[in-house]
């Protein structure tokens, strides 16, 4: 796996601090805020936490869910923008 790229609006060190459950419950110890992720959001966050690039995360999503890489990429981009607002 490669390092998370700077193209993500979410800082890698912030992602690392997040506690993520298998069911999609996310706790941010820095702010005390909690979240719920849907299944694609959970898969994306887990991959990004492991250091997967945004591009490769989108490719994994596309493979797993049977959608085009373009669809997965644009959706992931929107997700990261949304996520970035909370971190």
């Amino acid at each position: 796996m490669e390092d998370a790229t700077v193209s993500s609006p979410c800082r890698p060190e912030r992602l690392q601090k997040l506690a993520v459950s298998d069911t999609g419950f996310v706790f941010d110890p820095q702010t005390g805020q909690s979240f719920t992720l849907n299944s694609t959001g959970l898969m994306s966050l887990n991959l990004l936490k492991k250091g997967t690039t945004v591009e490769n995360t989108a490719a994994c999503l596309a493979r797993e869910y049977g959608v085009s890489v373009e669809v997965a990429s644009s959706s992931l981009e929107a997700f990261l923008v949304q996520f970035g607002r909370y971190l």
Partner: protein
Amino acid sequence: MQNMFNKAIWEPPFIQPHKIGEINKFGRRAAKDNICDTVFGVPVKLLVEKYGSPVFVTSEKQIRENVRRVKRAFERRYGNVIHGWSYKTNYTSAICNIMHQEGSWAEVVSEFEYEKARLLGVPGERIIFNGPNKSKAILERAIAEGARIHVDHLEELHTIESIAIARGSVVPVTLRLNFDTGYTEPWSRFGFNIESGQAYLAAKLVALSPHLKLTGLHSHIGTFILEPRAYAEQVRIMCKFMRELEGNENIQIESLDIGGGFPSNNALKGVYLPPEQSIPAISDYVNAVTSALMEGTQYRRESNRPLPQLIFESGRAMVDDAQMLLTSVVGTKRLADGRRACVLDGGANLLFTSYWYNHLIKLTSEIDGPVEETVLYGPLCMNIDVVRHSIHLPPLKHGDILAVHCVGAYNNTQWMQFIEYRPNVVLVHEDGESSIIRKAEDLSVMTQQDCLPSHLQIPFLDIGRNGRINKIASVGQIEAVS
């Protein structure tokens, strides 16, 4: 969940922040309070299995209790009271007959409604005939059958007089009035205006005619009125007008009809407080009406004259909470703005009132998952087909059933025959048994009024009614290919 290619179903990644402790005007409802697995005592699953989805479910017990409660409240305070069941609120035959069995008269506003009441067996003298469009033919019938005619405009008055002359009889009439109570938007398009003198002029015309007799006054000040004092003011104005007429003309008013407009326990869009806090008790309305009436008719008691009969035409308050709609989820999606959305098999086509109410909608079984803001769409290919713009629900899936509360008023009459068949309407009887009171529509219902000219009997000129391809010599000359 897997799709047909054994891949997990795609949904764009989404994160929902938890808003614990945020300011919420209604507080957060416990999930279990939001589950309604029986409707009027019958399990939801059983109803949907037996009658399909969507389905309207009506409670006979609730209707009877509603009517009895309101009538008792009026009768305790005034005595001489008639309830006119507003057909336009819900003219399903079984519902009308429940009302009639409870002693309510029929309050109709059109030829169709008049004919329906008569078809059900309501005698003419127990029909209150309102509405701005009464043809001469239906007026002739209604007058012959002794219905109470409420006059909306001068042309109608002239028509009634001409019928009376032709019959050689005196026809009793009620004048519909409009005026400003100071509480509600005046409905000046209906009836005769008091402030401008139009109403007095109409009364004078009736008094001068040897063929007409003014016996009643009627007004309807609006709909879903949240202020009981509006009714007190209405009655004060009507009584003042009655006294003025009786003082100046040879007139004796026998009935005062205050129309309808009492609210139901529904949540109007744009009203901040929930219905249980914003809607006054029915006794508040009854007190307002009867107190003003006792005061306004004091002059009658002083001269030992009989008090006028009080007529009220409440519809919504009698039936709204006696009907629910069960509707199923047919699809789910995540909107581009991140909100969750569901498509239901019943929408604005069945719930006309969803345009002005935020109906109470409950789950009918426990559903796990985080509660999220959700948009509920109906089945129409119209962007305005929205049952709820925003409701907090757990993740619904195909087949989940929702129970929409308080739908008994104005849906079974204003529903749209657009692109969907209208579903079964079911009645839960007082003994808990259920039966269909209006059958679901099918293709024959939808096409029975169509007429096809002979040259339009077939859709494609090269395909016959038997489905065989025909050889076309020229348009209009077809021979079947053997």
